[in-house]
């Protein structure tokens, strides 16, 4: 008797992506560049986060013809984004055969309270998180993979760093707590108690945690690996740079050899201008995508 859609199969898929780079692409041509550069997967989108930011308005699931075009162009896995809480967009992506769904704050949320109950799906999900409360709630809803939220489309790494440090620090803190203290910690963080007990025992999250949201250079990618990320998502950074082919290859290599600083120095030479980037203090209220769900 074979079984599809088990936790092991869904979480295992994310395990295979470890140490790799997942790149945002908007058409077949970009998808091929990403695959050629050594991406472990691509995220099919209508617009990269920087353009979503610039365009304003409501951002939705991409036109299925774009996602399909990307799926037909490459043999590596294809991910796609659904709006937070938009069960139907997610079901449509599943029916299309997308390999992983990102229930993503980069798109405008469809539900401002509830996330999708993801364990009902055969296809695995990745979700963003900033702290152990968000991380464990998403896992309980059925996410098989996590990523930091960072601040997408800004080309500024500061928020991704802060979210990765926060989660790592909370895991370390948790390890030192006694069982009775974990209950209060669960209450304070809105985190499921049993999952916290499991994390305290293992010393790590039960699913892989990638870095995302603001990675713009090979050194940024390497920094996130140094801080304990299992891999990286690069959104606007690659195809908003002057030389995407070279940039993509350099980011892949810097991720693999994140502690070979001489190599990262070599890789970073003559890459051309990285995406312009934004300072966090220039973002007001609803421009902060990371605040869109908790």
């Amino acid at each position, binding site marked *: 008797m074979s*079984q*599809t*859609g088990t936790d092991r199969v869904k979480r295992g*898929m994310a395990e*295979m992506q470890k140490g790799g780079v997942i790149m945002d692409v908007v058409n077949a041509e970009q998808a091929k560049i990403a695959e050629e550069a050594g991406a472990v997967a691509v995220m099919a989108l209508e617009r990269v986060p920087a353009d979503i930011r610039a365009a304003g308005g409501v951002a939705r699931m991409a036109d299925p013809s774009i996602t399909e075009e990307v799926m037909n162009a490459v043999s590596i896995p294809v991910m796609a984004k659904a709006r937070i809480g938009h069960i139907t967009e997610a079901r449509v992506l599943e029916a299309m055969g*997308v390999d992983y769904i990102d229930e993503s704050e980069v798109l405008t949320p469809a539900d401002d309270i509830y996330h999708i109950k993801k364990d009902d799906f055969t*296809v695995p999900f990745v979700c963003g998180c900033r702290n152990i409360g968000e991380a464990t709630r998403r896992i309980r809803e059925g996410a098989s993979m996590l990523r930091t939220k960072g601040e997408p489309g800004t080309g500024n790494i500061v928020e991704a760093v802060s979210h990765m440090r926060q989660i790592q620090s909370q895991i370390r803190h948790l390890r030192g707590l006694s069982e009775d203290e974990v209950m209060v910690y669960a209450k304070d963080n809105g985190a499921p108690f049993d999952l916290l007990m499991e994390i305290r025992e293992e010393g790590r999250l039960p699913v892989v945690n990638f870095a995302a949201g603001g990675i713009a250079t090979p050194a940024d990618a390497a920094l996130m690996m140094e801080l304990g990320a299992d891999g990286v998502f690069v959104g606007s950074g690659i195809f908003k740079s002057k030389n995407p082919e070279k940039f993509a290859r350099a980011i*892949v290599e810097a991720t693999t050899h994140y502690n070979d600083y001489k190599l990262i120095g070599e890789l970073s030479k003559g890459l051309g201008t990285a995406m312009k980037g934004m300072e966090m203090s220039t973002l007001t209220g609803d421009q902060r995508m990371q605040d869109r769900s908790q």
Partner: protein
Amino acid sequence: MTTIGVLGLQGAFREHVRSVEATGAEAVVVKKKEQLKEIDGLIIPGGESTTMRRLIDKYDFLEPIRQFGKQGKPIFGTCAGLILLASEIDGSYDVHLGVMDIKVRRNAFGRQRDSFEAPLDIEGVAEGYNAVFIRAPYIEGVGENTKVLSTYDGHIVAAQQDQYLACSFHPELTDDHRLTAHFVEMVKESKKTLAL
């Protein structure tokens, strides 16, 4: 002490390390070709085969791994690792290590939603083995010196040819270490033979 190297360029290498250690052997993550001298057997893990191949080329691993195998030292390829070992890949001219006489089909069971777990019998190794298939390849055909160890739904999913072992599924994702233990035994045997 038997030391097993796990190619650590990308993918689930830490899980293989854990599985090797569970069998009592020593495991090291191999990131540079010079490390091949320090190990008795090599595991090529699951991950993305296209990505791994790029990194193998970049760090000049291709010929050193072939030589490692030619010396009679065992190599075990799982999922993407199986694709890297194969001498023929369906629909592609891009053969990688090409050391094992098998023809493989990539993503043969379908996309991620078709990924599955199933119980398998692996000849001479295990019965009722819980195998995890993730966007898995299968073996379409084997050469005369290659022994089929297991099939699923009529497709070959594990095979051995002398010092080379390959499977479509992920032995590192469960706590059933019997296939890893079989590989560790192959390495111990080869160590004895190579010492003569």
